[in-house]
C-alpha cells in the first residue's frame, strides 16, 4: 500500500512533466536540431537501438471526440487537466462502461489501465490530422459487416469456434499489426539482430519476426494471423510493411487485404514514437494514420499462457447449454 501511495505521489509530480516532455519531444523531432544532448543509441550495425521493454498503455482515445473538431493537440495545461480527470476522478467502473453490470472491480486486480505506467500524449486522439477519426466505411464494408453479424446471430455460443478469436486465446484483438493498447499488460519487448527485428507483445504471447534484409513478401497464397511483416530502415526510422492477413482477424472491420505500414522512431531515451497507417479500399475510402508513444518500462515481459488456463471458455459454453435446456423445458 505504501508502494501504491508512493507511486501516486510520483505520478502526481511527474505525470504532467511526462506529458509535456513527450509533446516537446514530438516538436523536437519535427524541428532540428533538438535542444537536448541526447544521442540516439545504436546497435552494432549502426541502426537506432529500439531494444527493451515498452508500453503502449494509453488513455488517449483512438478517435477524436466530435466536439473537439479539428483540434489535434491539447495545450500543456489542457492535457494536464484531461489527464488529471482520468487519473483522479474516473474509476475503473466508469471505464468499464456497459460491461460493469456483471464484472469485477478491475482495480482490485490491478487491471485498471491507470494502474500501470501510461504512455501520455498531448494528442486529442491517436488518429492524426484534422479529422482525427476513422473514415466512413464503404457501402461494401457496411454490407459485409451486416452479413457477418447476421451469420453470427443466434449462433454466438454454439461452439468454441463461434467465440471471438481473442476468447479462444489465438490472437488478442489489439495485437495487430497495427498494435494498440490492450488495456492491461500493454507491454512489448523489442529485440534486434542482424537482419531481423522481433516484437513480442505480452498480450497475447506472439513474437512477430520482422526480416529487414530486403526480401519480398510471402506469396499472396500464404496468409498469417499477424500478416507478413517486412522491415526497412528509412534514416533512423524502422518502417514495417505488413500484408497477407487472413479472413479470421479484422482490424476495425478490415478485410484480409489490409495493408499496414508502421513507423518506429526513437525520439528520446524513454520514448519510441509509433505511427501506423492502414489502408484497405474494400473497407475505407481512404487510408488513415494514428500515432502514439511507446514509453519505456521496467521489464520483464511475463508469459501469458492464455489457452492453458482458459476456464472462461468451458464456463461460457456450459452456461449457454444450461440456457438452451431451460429454454427447451419451457
Amino acid at each position: 500500500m505504501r508502494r501504491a501511495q508512493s507511486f501516486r505521489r510520483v505520478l502526481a509530480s511527474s505525470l504532467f512533466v511526462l506529458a509535456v516532455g513527450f509533446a516537446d519531444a514530438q516538436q523536437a523531432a519535427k524541428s532540428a536540431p533538438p535542444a537536448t544532448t541526447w544521442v540516439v543509441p545504436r546497435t552494432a550495425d549502426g541502426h537506432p537501438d529500439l531494444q527493451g521493454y515498452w508500453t503502449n498503455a494509453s488513455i488517449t482515445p483512438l478517435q477524436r471526440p466530435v466536439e473537439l473538431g479539428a483540434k489535434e493537440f491539447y495545450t500543456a495545461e489542457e492535457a494536464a487537466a484531461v489527464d488529471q480527470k482520468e487519473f483522479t476522478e474516473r474509476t475503473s467502473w466508469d471505464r468499464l462502461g456497459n460491461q460493469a453490470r456483471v464484472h469485477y472491480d478491475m482495480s482490485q486486480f490491478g487491471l485498471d489501465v491507470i494502474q500501470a505506467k501510461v504512455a501520455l500524449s498531448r494528442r486529442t486522439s491517436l488518429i492524426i490530422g484534422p479529422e482525427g477519426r476513422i473514415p466512413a466505411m464503404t457501402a461494401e464494408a457496411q454490407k459485409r459487416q451486416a452479413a457477418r453479424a447476421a451469420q453470427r446471430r443466434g449462433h454466438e455460443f454454439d461452439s468454441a469456434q463461434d467465440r471471438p478469436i481473442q476468447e479462444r486465446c489465438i490472437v488478442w484483438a489489439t495485437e495487430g499489426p497495427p498494435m494498440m493498447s490492450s488495456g492491461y499488460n500493454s507491454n512489448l519487448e523489442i529485440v534486434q539482430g542482424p537482419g531481423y527485428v522481433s516484437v513480442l507483445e505480452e498480450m497475447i504471447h506472439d513474437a512477430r519476426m520482422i526480416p529487414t534484409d530486403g526480401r519480398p513478401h510471402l506469396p499472396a497464397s500464404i496468409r498469417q494471423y499477424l500478416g507478413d511483416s517486412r522491415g526497412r530502415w528509412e534514416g533512423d526510422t524502422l518502417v514495417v510493411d505488413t500484408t497477407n492477413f487472413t479472413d479470421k482477424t479484422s482490424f476495425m472491420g478490415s478485410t484480409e487485404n489490409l495493408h499496414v505500414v508502421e513507423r518506429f522512431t526513437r525520439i528520446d531515451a524513454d520514448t519510441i514514437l509509433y505511427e501506423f497507417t492502414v489502408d484497405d479500399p474494400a473497407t475505407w475510402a481512404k487510408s488513415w494514420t494514428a500515432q502514439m508513444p511507446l514509453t519505456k518500462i521496467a521489464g520483464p515481459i511475463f508469459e501469458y499462457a492464455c489457452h492453458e488456463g482458459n476456464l472462461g471458455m468451458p464456463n461460457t459454453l456450459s452456461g449457454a447449454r444450461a440456457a438452451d435446456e431451460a429454454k427447451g423445458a419451457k
Partner: protein
Amino acid sequence: MRRAVWLSLLLVARMPLSAHHAFAAEFDINRPIKLRGTVTKMDWINPHSWIHIDVKGPDGKVTSWMIEGGSPNVLLRMGFTKDALPAGAEIVLEGFQAKDGSNRGVGKTLSFADGRKLFLGSSAPGANGEPDK
C-alpha cells in the same frame, strides 16, 4: 467458413478496459451471490486467476466455490505474491454466479473479512515502475 469477428471494443470514445471475455456470457446478472469463505488455494493462471474458497452454510455444510479474478501478470507486477492471499484467509465476495448454476462466481467486489480490499482497492497509478535507466 464463418468469420470470427473481433469485438470492436476500441470504437468507444475512451480506451476501455477490455476483459479477456464477455463476463455477461459466463455469469448471470440474475444470480447475485454474497459469500463469506475461507481460501483453500489460488490458481495463478492466465487469462484469469481463480480463487478457491470453502463456504460454510447455515447448516454447517461446507461448499467449495471458485472465484474468477484478474491476470496474474499484473498482480505479480504490482507486488501481489503467493503469500498475499494465503490458504486460510477469510474473504467476502459480492458478485454473480455462473450461468450454468455451478459453484463458480465472479466477485464484483472482493475483500478480506475485516473489510480490507483484497488487492489495492482504489487505483494506484504508475505501478509498472520507473523505466530502466
